[in-house]
């Protein structure tokens, strides 16, 4: 399935991989010790003992997403390929994998985003060794027929259809297309409709895609829960050790700087609330900068539920049904957005004006330090609240690690957040939240507010 909006995302790049074996101690930013090994073939294997008796979460992060779709006509391919990874090998032909998963009762699926593809299984420790075997096998030896490929392409088309009823897919397509002229972030993870419809003809390219990106040095493996580490690593070395491909390099086009404001309008043919987006081009998430941490704080500061804008626009004046940000960490420079779901089309100018005023106030140096502290507190406790199960821990680790490229990215990101100062927000807003660096997206429904 495609999961475009990853909650909790933020980023820092730079592949500061640890030595061949390393113990990462618990910290205020990730409260569990972590064991990290890097196999000779480049595969990073991360284990986190976690109290979940008899259960483990097993996640494989491939650092490939729609960002890697550089060839024309191949948009949506990373996501499509995620589907193909369930299609079998010589050792476990199509359907055999299902038997293993079913035997133990694993909750088993995957998701793809702009930057990463994550395969996740959650279930009994009793099935862990078998899981290692079948997972390693498919990553090393995936094999599927052209008819199987063509059939799965129709399931992806079905996924597009189910999402197309919501205005968000169209919004995402148009915002990307307008804000990016060169970079692959200009298309969505699902891909353009015409490309999705043409997927059945891309069998040969699918093999190329596998060879390019499904390589041990482009993958991190996370195991969280109740397991015997020595047994696990023995199985991992046995089954993943012979995997020997090297990750390819493709030229993901650099997006040229934006010099003037862009805009795009959507006339939505059905009933929905009007929407208003301001999206600025902002830096990538990297471990050697605070940019991602600042943007994470900035999202709450400007348009979170405790922001003055929320109080004014949503609670007091009720010009908007909701406001917020869809900021998420990315490997390359992406977007920082503020979004309003308007009560009525007539409110658009007032809401846009309020957005502009809030940004201007911040950029000119007026910042509420107590709110920055509250956001940090929310982040700290929110992290703990979100770690109730082995799966939730593994998912957060995987997403951050996949985007930043290092296994301890989650903790390092949250440490960065804890260090954000009010002045950082001011400097960031001044530098990036400018009119010339902005794309404005407006959506007007056929019948505003759903009125007949």
């Amino acid at each position, binding site marked *: 399935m495609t999961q475009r909006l990853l909650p909790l995302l933020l980023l820092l790049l730079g592949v500061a991989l640890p030595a061949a074996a390393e113990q990462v101690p618990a910290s205020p930013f990730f409260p569990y010790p972590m064991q990290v090994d890097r196999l000779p073939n480049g595969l990073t294997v991360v284990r986190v003992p976690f109290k979940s008796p008899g259960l483990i979460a097993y996640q494989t992060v491939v650092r490939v997403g729609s960002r890697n779709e550089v060839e024309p006509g191949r948009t949506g391919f990373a996501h499509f390929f995620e589907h193909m990874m369930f299609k079998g090998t010589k050792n476990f032909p199509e359907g055999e994998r299902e038997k293993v998963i*079913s035997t133990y009762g694993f909750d088993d699926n995957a998701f793809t985003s702009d930057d990463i593809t994550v395969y996740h299984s959650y279930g009994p420790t009793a099935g862990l060794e078998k899981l290692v075997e079948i997972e390693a096998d498919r990553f090393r030896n995936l094999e599927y027929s052209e008819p199987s490929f063509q059939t799965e392409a129709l399931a992806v088309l079905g996924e597009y259809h189910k999402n197309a009823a919501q205005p968000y897919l169209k919004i995402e397509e148009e915002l990307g297309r307008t804000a990016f002229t060169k970079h692959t972030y200009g298309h969505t993870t699902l891909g353009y409709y015409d490309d999705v419809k043409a997927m059945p003809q891309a069998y040969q390219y699918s093999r190329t895609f596998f060879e390019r990106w499904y390589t041990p040095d482009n993958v991190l493996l996370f195991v969280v829960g109740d397991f015997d580490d020595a047994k696990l690593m023995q199985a991992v070395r046995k089954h993943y050790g012979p995997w020997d491909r090297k990750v390819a390099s493709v030229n993901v086009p650099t997006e040229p700087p934006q010099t003037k404001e862009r805009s795009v309008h959507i006339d939505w043919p059905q009933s929905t609330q009007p929407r208003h987006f301001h999206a600025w081009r902002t830096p990538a998430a990297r471990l050697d900068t605070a940019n991602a941490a600042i943007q994470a704080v900035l999202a709450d500061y400007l348009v979170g539920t405790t922001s003055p804008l929320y109080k004014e626009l949503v609670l007091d004046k009720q010009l908007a049904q909701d406001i917020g940000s869809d900021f998420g960490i990315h490997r390359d420079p992406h977007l920082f957005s503020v979004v309003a779901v308007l009560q009525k089309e007539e409110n658009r100018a007032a809401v846009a004006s309020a957005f502009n005023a809030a940004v201007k106030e911040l950029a000119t140096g007026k910042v509420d330090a107590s709110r920055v*502290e509250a956001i940090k507190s929310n982040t700290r406790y929110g992290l703990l609240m979100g770690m109730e199960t082995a799966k939730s821990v593994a998912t957060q680790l995987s997403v951050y690690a996949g985007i930043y490229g290092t296994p301890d990215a989650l903790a390092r990101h949250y440490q960065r957040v804890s260090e954000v100062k009010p002045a950082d927000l001011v400097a960031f807003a001044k530098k990036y939240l400018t009119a010339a660096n902005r794309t404005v997206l407006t959506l007007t429904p056929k019948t505003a507010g759903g009125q007949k």
Partner: protein
Amino acid sequence: MRSLISRSLALSAALCLGGCATTSQTAPPPEAPAPQAPQQEQAQAPAQPQAPATVPTVPLHRPAPMQLVVQANPASPIVSFRLVFHAGSVDDPKGKEGLTALTADVLSEGGTRNLTSAQLLEALFPMAAELNASTDKELTVFSGRVHKDHLARFLDIFTDVLLAPRLSPQEFERLRARALSDVRNGLRSENDEMLGKVALDALLYQGHPYAHFVGGTEKGLESITLEDVKAHAARVFTQDRLVIGLAGPVDEALQKTVVSRLSALPATGAPRVELPPVPTTAGRALVVQKPTLSTAVSLGYVTPLRRGDPDFFPVSFALSYLGEHRQSSGVLFGELREKRGLNYGDYAYAEHFIEQPGTTYNRTNIARTQQDITVWIRPVVPGNGMFATRGALYFLDRLVKQGIPQDQFELRRGFLLGYSRLWEQTDQRRLGYAIDSLLYGTPDFLEQYRAALAKMTPESVQAAVRRQIRPEALNFAFVTQDADGLAKLLKEQPPSPISYASPKPPELLSEDKAIISLPLPIRADAVQVVPAQTFMEK
């Protein structure tokens, strides 16, 4: 915060909450002889028992007022609260549909005597505390989670939400406007899959208190006043309807404090709604017309089967085998999606199912007196709508007639023994199951399920399936653009041939021959077309 652009995803959970009244208040379709079951060359099986004419009302259990359910977990730093009221959309007065859900929203989001709504958000924010309300047909849940560092402060706020709500006119208007938007936009326009499920509910429970959408009808919401909300809270959020769930690092003192504070709720309020029997009318179809690229399909029927019935576990097992929600190992998923490429997924349910956001598991605390068995076909290209529907019926019918092969049976047993453990991995879900067990009278429900799994045989499961699963009893809901065209096909039922983009094995093509002409149990005089923009009007 909830993502703005995926608001419809958040809404989708609400949209699953139930049925709605259609505006085309057509008279109930005339009674007609039940259609014959689809003809398939399959093993001879004994005749099924007579279908019930109605699903009777066997009320849920009534726990003692403010019964306490504790799931102690001293090692956890997070305290969970789960207050479950036996109050839901069935308690909405006629003409005020949506009142219970809106009341819960006004209480949980609208502020308290001491805190405006903005101050409430500001107080919860640094703690990252969660405070939510959700309403279903018969139950409303107020849930809270907080780190133990902030327990005292959170407890004050959480109990004030119920005991001293602010009830401000401004917040009432805001939340009512949002609820109206959820009906006008979210339900009618933005999620075909959920619209199909709601349409099926409307069809199955026509004339019953379950029939209207939990979130309300357009006219119902428009007519609700702040005074209605205030009065309704006192009528239904009462001690005698409340079960108190606590989990995490919970000690005696906290238990006493919570019970003591909630003793300030009204002891009693409105009498419980007496639900009427539900007619088991079969063979109806509702086609909702809206602009869309695809056709969404839901099918099902009301059933007396529910938790506690000896047949419930084996039927749950069988329908998990047919199509466990969003798992790839089900028959429907394998046959319709994987082999034929019809859509994104196909699933089956032994009781009403509402996905808990962020998981593939059913929500807890959506217990219902009267239940339904359903099949969900995710959107297909319109030209394959008939074929996909027939395909789902074909495999359902095959399950009834042929049962589950021994090897598949063992796989499914293993799957459920493991997978069912994932359903109870959070404190909120453990509380939810424990409270549902009180309401259904099924102590240790999941343990009992696993114990039952160990004893089942293919024969015992098939016997239960033959008693409870009735393909001929199905009703059908569709969401599509060419509604009149589809309605015509449903009435006339011409063959629905299919062509594939890739070669298919002979055995699949042979099966297709049976599917393309399979009679759907739909009566030509019981096919309705409803425009989406008038759906859920009153």
